[in-house]
Every structure is written in C-alpha cells, then in structure tokens.
C-alpha cells in the first residue's frame, strides 16, 4: 500500500548546487559542517537508543516516541536556519532538541522526570523545550502548534525582526482542521514560517492512504498559494538544500514556505506500538536508506573524514550519552511540595488580598519578574 522507498525517492530532486572548492562538497558546505551534521544525527540516534533502554527499565514512563530513521530531517532543516530562529515541533521531539543544541543531559533528565530536566520534569518526553535557545517545545495535541508557530511568525514580522519560524509536524497532522487554519493565516498575512511536514507514511497506525486522498502533502499547501517542495528526508543534504531555499524565501519577506520531507520511522509509533499495521519487509527496505551510514559514506567519499574518524565521532557521542543517562539517574526528583508552582506566572492570593482589604490597604498586585518571551 505504501509506496516503496525507491518510487518515492524518484520524485525528489536530488541535492545539487555549486560544489565547494575544496573536496567537491555540494551546497557550499565545509567539512566541519558535514562532520557536525553527521555528529548530530548520531547524537539523536544514540540518545534515543538509550532512552528506549531506560524505558524498558521503567526509568522513562508514559509515552516515548522515537525519531530513529528520521534524524536527517531535523538535522538538515535546522542546519539551514539560524540558531535564533524559532523552533516548534510535535511530540516526537528529541531530534529537534538535540539538533538545536540542547544538552543531552537535560533532555535525558526530562525523560526521567527529574528536576534537572529541561522542564523540571513537568513536561516529559513529549514536551522538551528550551526558551533560551528559542526552542519553544514539543507539542502533543496533533497539529496544535501549527497556528502557534504562525502566531510567533506574526510577532516577528510585527516587530520587524528577521528571525523566522520552523514548525515541524507529521503527515497525520494535515488531516486535522487546525493545520488548515494555521496555513491559511500564514498565507493571508505572508508570515515568515517554514512548515516542515515529516511524511513518514503513517499517522500512528493509519497509512497515508487511509488519512489522505492525496499522497503528497505539499499539494495541501498549494491551495494556499504557498511554495511547496518535497525533499528526501533520508538524505540530510536534500533536506538542507530544500530548507535553505525555504529559509531564504521566508527571511526575505516573501511569506510562508512548505517543505515535505519523505521519511520513515524505523521504530513503532511509540514504545507501546505492536506494529501490526506494517510489514517487517517494508521496514527493512527503508532501513537500507538509513540516513546515518548513508551520510557517513558521503563524508568518506568526499574526503570529509575517514571511517576511523566517523567511528571516533560515534564513540564520543556514545560517551556523551552514557554521561547523559548517568546525569539523569542522579538528578533529584522534583519536590512534590512544588507541584503547584508555575500554575500562574503571576499567582493570585485572595486570602492576602482580603487581609489587606480588612486592614484598609488596597490590594496592590505584586510586580513579578516578567517571564521570558521571544520578542522581548
């Protein structure tokens, strides 16, 4: 039912562009950049493999959605933007966090529900976020962050800032009305936002054909007069190229852009998924397109680094992730006495106000340190 990897890839324009002078690298990339891309993909992979292990040991609870197989999308896309561009994604969010440079320690601690987690254990795996890096979080109501991203883009436009918004979501999200409401607004107001649709052929157990009468998600953007391209989500350079084009478009004030990355998750939808709805053989076929060895081969072929150097990166990352797990293991639990902190940024205390009123003083609301917002 699902298109074979081969058939789908043939629709994708292969990464091309001017070769870099040294070593023949495309897209003006430097070897250091290539090594960085490779390292980030390995980071995500190893982070999640450790997370899966921790889940099996009941150190991670609730939902755990792995990005394994799709690493090229977050890594390629974010490399094409700036570090201060705004980033939102869905619950399958470890890749966004790590590609944005969040510390794996704080990410892992969040999965473990610990105080040192990015969100102090309040959010968990689905809700990683780090405002200081303009990573505004993983969102778990499918599609809900699509208009939210558009709103952030509006705030940038309004304040004449040149940051743009990266908004990642899945093929399944396009069946929800909120996707359309968000795209419509982005198009109406010409907002600087890249919609990045990770088309991995499934929305949980639903196949693409069950979700959508069209198999190409980019078609859904075209109704909003939005430029839309597909790229090979198993090839970090293809993603990089497509999103670089999108980012230029957005940053120059030309409005929103839609990028569809054709990709595949190698693991189940979440750890609870028995994967009854797809063939093992299909998974195997896609595994042959694994973006990590594929880009590793590219690096070796283009003399970015040797196999040994790749292995060394792998080893460094493995160390880093072992440390992340150890850190998370040792991080304290959040204090249950603080469970009602952060309900409000400006808490209200009617008892105090009443007491003050009794004493004749008017209740003056306390000025609190203003919580961080992007534009300020």
């Amino acid at each position, binding site marked *: 039912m699902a298109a074979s990897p081969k058939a789908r890839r043939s629709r994708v324009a292969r990464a091309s562009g001017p070769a870099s002078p040294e070593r023949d690298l495309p897209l003006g990339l430097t070897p250091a950049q290539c090594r960085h891309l490779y390292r980030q993909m390995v980071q995500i992979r190893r982070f999640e493999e450790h997370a899966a292990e921790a889940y099996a040991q009941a150190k991670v609870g609730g939902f755990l959605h792995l990005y394994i197989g799709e690493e090229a999308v977050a890594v390629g896309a974010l490399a094409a933007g700036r570090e201060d561009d705004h980033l939102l994604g869905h619950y399958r969010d470890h890749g966004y966090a790590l590609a944005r440079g969040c510390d794996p320690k704080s990410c892992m601690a969040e999965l473990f529900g610990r105080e040192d987690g990015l969100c102090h254990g309040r959010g968990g795996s689905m809700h990683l976020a780090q405002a200081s890096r303009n990573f505004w979080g993983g969102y778990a109501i499918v*599609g809900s962050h699509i208009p939210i991203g558009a709103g952030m883009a509006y705030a940038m436009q309004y304040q004449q800032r040149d940051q743009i918004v990266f908004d990642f979501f899945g093929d399944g999200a396009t069946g929800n009305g909120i996707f359309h409401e968000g795209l419509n607004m982005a198009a109406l107001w010409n907002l600087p936002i890249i919609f990045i649709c990770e088309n991995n052929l499934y929305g949980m157990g*639903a196949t693409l054909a069950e*979700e959508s009468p069209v198999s190409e998600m980019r078609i859904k953007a075209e109704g909003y007069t939005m430029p839309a391209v597909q790229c090979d989500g198993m090839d970090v350079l293809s993603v990089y190229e497509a999103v670089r084009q999108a980012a230029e478009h957005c940053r120059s004030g030309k409005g929103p852009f839609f990028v569809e990355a054709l990709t595949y998750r190698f693991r189940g939808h979440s750890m609870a998924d028995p994967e009854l709805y797809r063939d093992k053989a299909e998974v195997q076929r896609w595994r042959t397109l694994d973006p990590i060895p594929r880009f590793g081969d590219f690096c070796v072929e283009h003399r970015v680094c040797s196999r040994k150097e790749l292995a060394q990166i792998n080893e460094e990352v493995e160390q880093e992730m072992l440390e992340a797990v150890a850190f998370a293991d040792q991080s304290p639990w959040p204090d249950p006495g603080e*469970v009602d902190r952060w309900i409000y940024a400006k808490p209200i205390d009617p008892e105090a106000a009443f007491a003050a009123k009794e004493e004749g003083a008017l209740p003056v609301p306390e000025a609190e340190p203003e919580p961080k917002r992007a534009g300020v």
Partner: protein
Amino acid sequence: MLFRSPRPSRSRSGRASEVAVVSYRDAVRTALRDEMLRDQRVILMGESITGYGGSYAVTKGLLDEFGPKRVMETPIAEAGIVGFAVGAAMGGLLPVAELMTVNFALLALDQIVNSAAKFHYMFGGQWSVPLVVRTVSGFGQLGPTHSQTFEGWFASVPGLKVVMPATPADARGLLLSAIRDPDPVIFIEHSLLYSTKGEVAESEGGDGGEIPIGVAKVVRPGADVSLVAYSRMLLQALQAAEVLERDDGISCEVIDLRTLRPVDYPTVVDSVRRTHQVVLCGEDWRSGGFGAGLLSEIQDRCFDDLDGPIQRVAMRDVPMAYSRQLEKALVPTSEQVVEAVRRLN
C-alpha cells in the same frame, strides 16, 4: 429499506447467558462485536482503530471480521469524526465513534454539544442522533495534556447521556444500552481499568444483556458513610471501605453511579438519608469537577440529613505533571478516601 433491526438471523437471544471472567477491555470489544453481529447498522470509526487495533487494543480483530466499511480508520480529525458520525446517525446508521482519549475530545466538543446534544431538541423532535462516542480517561505519566478527564463538562450538557463504567460487566451492559439508545451517549472508559477482570454474562447476538442507563448500583451496603464513586474511583472507594471497616470499624456504603447524566439521585439520596455522611470520589479537577454538581444537588436534597459537610476526593487543581513523583502528589487515591471519611468521624 435495506436493513431490518435487529437482524434476526444468528440471534441466540432467549438462550440462558453464559458467565465468563473477562477483562474490561474484552468486555468492551465483545460488546461492540456482538452488537455489530446483531445489527448491521452499527459501524465503528476512529483513529488507529483498524490496523493498529486501537490505541488501547480494544478494537483489535474487528477490522478483519467486519471489513473497512464497518470499522473505519479515520484521519486525525476529532471534530470531523464526531460531525461525520452525527450525520451517519441521521442517515440511518448506529455509529460508535472512538476518540482516542478524552483529552482530544476537546477538539470535538462543539460537535458534541452543539450538534449531537442539540438536534433532537432544536429541530422539535423530528429526529434523534443515536450516536455513541467512546473515549478514555486515565493517567500514568502521560503529561499535562494527556491526563485530563472532563466528565463534569459532558455531564452538564442537556441532551447528552454520559456513562462511565467501572467493571467489565457494566462496560458490556451499558455499552449495549448505549448503542441501542436513540440519544447521543458519551461512553468514557478508563485506561487503568482495561486489564481488570470480572464476571460478565455473555449473550452473543441476543437482544438482552443491557444494563439500563441512569441506574446506579449499591456495590457494598453499609450504614455509616456513603461513598459515591464511578469508573476507577469505585475501586479506590471499595479499598477504602475495607480499610475503614477493618481499622476503624466504620461501615461504608459504596455506590457506583455508572451513569453521570442523568444521575440516579434517588439511589444516592436514599443512601445519604440512612448514613448522614457522604464522600464523593472523582478524578477530575476539584474546582467545578463532576463532584461539585453532585454535591450541589445532594446538599439541596439532603441538607437536613447531613451530619457533616459533604467531602470530596478529586484531582488537585494543577495542570498535571509528567514526573512520577509529582503525578503521585496530584491524583486521588484510596488513602484520600479513607482520610475524607475520617475527617467526618
């Protein structure tokens, strides 16, 4: 007319029911299956209910048995699903729409409140909407957006019937009633009950087996305090009742409401008039949760019968946190039921 209802062939109604011990999950599944066998108008629709088998594996196997016309995989479009199911009901079918969890039901609330609940009334009784919306509440480190439960909201809407079974037998019997009911029924299961087991009378293909909507059940008779509960909190209330009997010599009457709209107040009031003390046990937020409505009505009907304030056990008013330690500090427990009773005594 293409179908007759109920389809008479294969019916074994009238036959004495067999009793089996089954899980809550299987009780729901077999109720769906039996009703689909009995009446071709019954269809299922929802997200990941076919190949995946349902996110809690409730609909597993039904696609293979009934095919995609009767077990429909839908896009992730909660409002659309309920709207579509309302239309299918108006068109002569008996749809059972699954919303993966009650959290996502917020997206469909307009269709539930302004379509399903309203049409019979607003069009002057010309037609009704025989729709069942099955959904699930529950928690377990699911985080802030996936751990909520909104039965109080549904139960405040005129035109809806709202059911929350606690046992496999009630899950079956009430689901049969819900599907056969001409009105929209919100049927809320509980993720932490799916693996619990209990005796269920099976009556495949038959007409019987219904447990009536709107009738509460005194699950454990008692003399000193009335514990009013539903869904998972019934188990907490029963546990508390044992502890209180054993450790405090307090005799608790435990009532399983089963239906949240309309509430079987006569059964509740009858109990309160005997015990003079009440603890209401729910899992939604304390401020304005379902228990608040219950409390309001009970104090109105039983003011002079009450020896002390009606107690409530409910979710703490916090958005819910992922971390295990924090979650523990928020969710209602049987210990809290015990404490509430002790506060009264």
